[in-house]
C-alpha cells in the first residue's frame, strides 16, 4: 500500500486499533492478524500475484528446512535459489533478455524474436525475493536457524510496511521480534514511529513530488531545453529520488515502530558522503548490506588479491544495477558506481583524511559523481542518457534556465527544509532538535507546522514511489 495514499490514512488507524485489540499474550494471533492484513493489502493490487508471494515464501521455507536437515544442502540451496529467482527473472528480465538477444542477432543478419510479455511486474517482487533469498543463505551458512513456523516466516516475507519498497530486512532482525512476546503497546516506540511517518510524508509529498514536476517537464523533453536546464533537472532528480525513497523507507520503518517492530535503517544522509564507497554505506543500506553479505563476501570480498578484490566490487555493483531494472541504463549506472569505488580504492580515497575544506570538496565531488550516474538511472535508454549529458556539456547552447515560477517557491522551501534538517542531523545532531526537543511546546509546534506544510505545499495525486517499480 502506498503510504501517501488516502486509503492508507484511513486504513492504518483501523489496522492499528484492531492489532492492539488482540492481547499481547496472544502473540500468534497478533502475527496471524498482521499476515492477513499484509496479504489483503497485497491482494488489493493484482490478486493473482499474491500466489507468487506465497510461492516464493513456500519454496524458501521448505528449502531452509531441508537445508537444516543436512542432506545435500548445497543442491537444495541451488534448487531453492533458482526456484525463488524464477518469477523475478520471468517477470522482470524476460523482455529485456529477449530484446537484447534479438538485437544482437539482428546485427549478424538473423531475425529471431520471441513474443514479448506485456504483463505488469508484481509489485515489490525484487524486495521480497531478495529478503527470502537472504534468509535461505543465512540458513545455509548457519547464521540463522530455519524457522519451523510457516506463519511466522510468511509474515517475515510479506510484512506489509516493507514489502513494497523495502527495507530488505534480515531474518535475524525480524523473526526474533515476531516470535517474542511483544509489549502490549510501546508508547515511546510508537511516538518515534509517528514522527518518522510525518517526516517521511514531508519528504515524499513536499519535496520529492514537487521537484518531480520540474524533472518530469524537462528530462522527457530534454531536446526542448538548454543544457543548463537539463543539469538543474538532473540535480532535482538527485533530490527527488532521495526524498522519495528515503521518505518511503522512513514511513515503512515508522509504521513498523507503531506496531512495535524495529526494521532495518535504510538511509543515513547519503549526499553528505565523502566518497562513492561512503555513499553506499549511507544509501539503501539494506540493499548494500545484502549485496555485501550474499555477493561480495562469498566471492572473496577483500580477503584476496587486489585485482580479485576490484573484480568483486565491480560484480557486486553490476548485480546492484541488474537488480534495479531490466535495462542497460541500470547496468551502466551500477558499473559506474563499481568503477568509481575501484578508483577510490586504488587512490586510497574511500575515507576523508583532510580538514573541513577537503571534506567539503570531497562531498561536492561525490555528489556530482552520484548526480551524473543518476542521469543513466532516470533516462529510458542509453541514447537518451548520453544525449542529456551531451546537452549539459554543450557550450554552444545558451546558459538560460527554464524556471517554473509557480513551483519555484515551494521547491526552494521543500528542498531548503530537507537540506537544513539533514545538515543539522549530520553535523550537529544534538543541537537544534525540534521534533525531539525537551520542550513540549516546541515539539508540538513542529509537528503542527510540518502537518500544515504537508497540507498546503504537498503535491497530492502524484504517482507512486519510484522504488515501488523495482
Amino acid at each position, binding site marked *: 500500500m502506498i503510504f501517501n495514499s488516502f486509503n492508507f490514512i484511513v486504513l492504518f488507524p483501523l489496522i492499528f486499533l484492531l492489532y492492539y485489540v488482540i492481547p499481547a499474550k496472544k502473540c500468534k494471533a497478533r502475527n496471524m492478524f498482521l499476515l492477513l492484513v499484509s496479504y489483503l493489502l497485497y491482494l488489493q493490487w493484482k490478486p493473482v500475484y499474491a500466489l507468487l508471494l506465497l510461492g516464493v515464501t513456500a519454496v524458501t521455507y521448505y528449502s531452509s528446512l531441508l537445508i537444516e536437515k543436512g542432506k545435500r544442502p548445497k543442491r537444495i540451496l541451488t534448487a531453492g535459489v533458482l526456484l525463488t529467482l524464477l518469477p523475478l527473472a520471468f517477470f522482470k528480465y524476460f523482455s529485456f533478455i529477449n530484446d537484447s538477444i534479438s538485437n544482437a542477432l539482428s546485427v549478424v543478419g538473423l531475425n529471431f524474436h520471441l513474443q514479448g510479455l506485456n504483463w505488469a511486474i508484481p509489485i515489490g517482487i525484487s524486495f521480497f525475493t531478495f529478503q527470502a533469498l537472504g534468509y535461505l543463505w543465512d540458513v545455509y551458512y548457519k547464521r540463522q536457524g530455519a524457522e519451523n513456523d510457516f506463519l511466522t516466516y510468511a509474515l517475515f516475507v510479506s510484512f506489509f510496511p516493507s514489502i513494497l519498497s523495502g527495507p530488505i530486512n534480515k531474518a535475524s532482525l525480524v523473526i526474533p521480534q515476531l516470535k517474542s512476546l511483544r509489549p502490549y503497546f510501546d508508547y515511546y516506540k510508537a511516538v518515534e514511529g509517528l514522527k518518522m511517518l510525518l517526516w517521511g510524508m514531508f519528504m515524499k509529498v513536499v519535496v520529492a513530488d514537487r521537484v518531480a514536476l520540474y524533472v518530469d517537464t524537462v528530462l522527457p523533453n530534454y*531536446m*526542448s*531545453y538548454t543544457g543548463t536546464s537539463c543539469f538543474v533537472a538532473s540535480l532535482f532528480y538527485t533530490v527527488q529520488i532521495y526524498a522519495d525513497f528515503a521518505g518511503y523507507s522512513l514511513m515503512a520503518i515508522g509504521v513498523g515502530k507503531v506496531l512495535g517492530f524495529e526494521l532495518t535503517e535504510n538511509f543515513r544522509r547519503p549526499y553528505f558522503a565523502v566518497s562513492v564507497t561512503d555513499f553506499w554505506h549511507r544509501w539503501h543500506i539494506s540493499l548494500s548490506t545484502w549485496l555485501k553479505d550474499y555477493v561480495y563476501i562469498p566471492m572473496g570480498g577483500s580477503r584476496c588479491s587486489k585485482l580479485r578484490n576490484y573484480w568483486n566490487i565491480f560484480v557486486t555493483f553490476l548485480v546492484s544495477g541488474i537488480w534495479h531494472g531490466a535495462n542497460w541504463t541500470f547496468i551502466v549506472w551500477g558499473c559506474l558506481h563499481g568503477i568509481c569505488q575501484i578508483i577510490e580504492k586504488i587512490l586510497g580515497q574511500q575515507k576523508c583524511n583532510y580538514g573541513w575544506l577537503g571534506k567539503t570538496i570531497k562531498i561536492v565531488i561525490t555528489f556530482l559523481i552520484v548526480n551524473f550516474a543518476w542521469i543513466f538511472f532516470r533516462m529510458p535508454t542509453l541514447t537518451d542518457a548520453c544525449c542529456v549529458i551531451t546537452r549539459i556539456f554543450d557550450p554552444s547552447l545558451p546558459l538560460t534556465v527554464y524556471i517554473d515560477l509557480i513551483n519555484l517557491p515551494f521547491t526552494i522551501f521543500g528542498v531548503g527544509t530537507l537540506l537544513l534538517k539533514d545538515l543539522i542531523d549530520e553535523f550537529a545532531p544534538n543541537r537544534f532538535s525540534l521534533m525531539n526537543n525537551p520542550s513540549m511546546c516546541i515539539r508540538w509546534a513542529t509537528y503542527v507546522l510540518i502537518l500544515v506544510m504537508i497540507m498546503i*505545499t504537498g503535491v497530492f495525486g502524484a504517482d507512486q514511489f519510484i522504488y515501488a517499480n523495482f
Partner: protein
Amino acid sequence: MGSITKRIDIGGTGRNNYICDKMTDDVLIFGSSRAEHHYNAQMISDSLGVSCYNAGEGGCGIILAYGRLLMILERCTPKTIIYEVTPRYDYLYGDDNHQYLGRLKQKYDRFGVDSIFWSVDPSERYKMISRMYRHNSSFLQNLIVYFFRMSTDTGVKGFRPYYEEMDTMKIKGSKKLYDSKEGYVYDSLKIHYIDKFLKKTKSMKLVFVVSPVWYGQDTLVLEPIKQICKKRNTYIIDFSNSPKYVHHNEYFKDGVHLNARGADEFTKDLIIELKKRKVFE
C-alpha cells in the same frame, strides 16, 4: 485564506474569481491554454457586436469547463459557447484527472462543484473537509498577489496572448499531433462530463473549434466530437491542418501555441467562419 482568495481580482486567481462569480458575457470561450492564448475576445466583441469573454485555462479541459459553467449558470445564461477542443484534456485517457480540479478547489462549496470532485476521486470528499487542503499549492501565490499586487497578466477579457517568437527548440520532428496507429483510448469520466456539458448548454449555441497546430493534427482524433456535432446539429470548425498555419513559424510560440500575431490572425479567420455559418444570427 479563503476570504483573501475571494477578494483577489488580478492574475490567474482574479481571472478565475471573475469567471466563476461575476462574468455575464454573451459569448464564452472554453478550453485549455490553446483557448486562453488563441482567442482574442476583444476582437470577437468588436467584430460581432456581442460581449465575449475568454474562459480558457492552461492544462485544463472539460472537467474544469463544466464546473465553471455550473457557476456561470447560477447567475446568467450565455448565448453562445465556443469550445476549443483539446483531445488530450477533453476525452482521451491518460492524464491524472486530479489536475483539472485545481481551479475548482476554492469554489468547492458552490452548487454542484463538490460532486465533480467526488466523481474524480471519492476520497476528495474527505480531503476537502480540510480548509487548508483547498489552498494547497496556491496559498503562497495568493498571499503575494493580495498583499503585493504582484501577478501575471489577467489579460484583456480573459485573453492572454503570448508575445514570444517561435522557439524552434520546442519543436519535436514534423509528425502530426496524435497518432491513430496506436488507437485512441477514451476516458469515460471526461466523456461523461462532455455529455453533462452538452445537456447544460442545450438552450445555447455551441460551436466546437480546433485552433491551428504547427505540426498539423490527425483528423481521426476528432471523431467523437464530430459525432456529437452530428447528433446536436452543430458545427466543428477545424483549423488544425490549415495550410496557412501548419509549419509557419511566424504564427507560433511553440508547436501547439500561437503567438499574439498568430492568435489575432486566427481570430480573424474564425470570425469569418462564424459569420459564414451564421452562428450569431
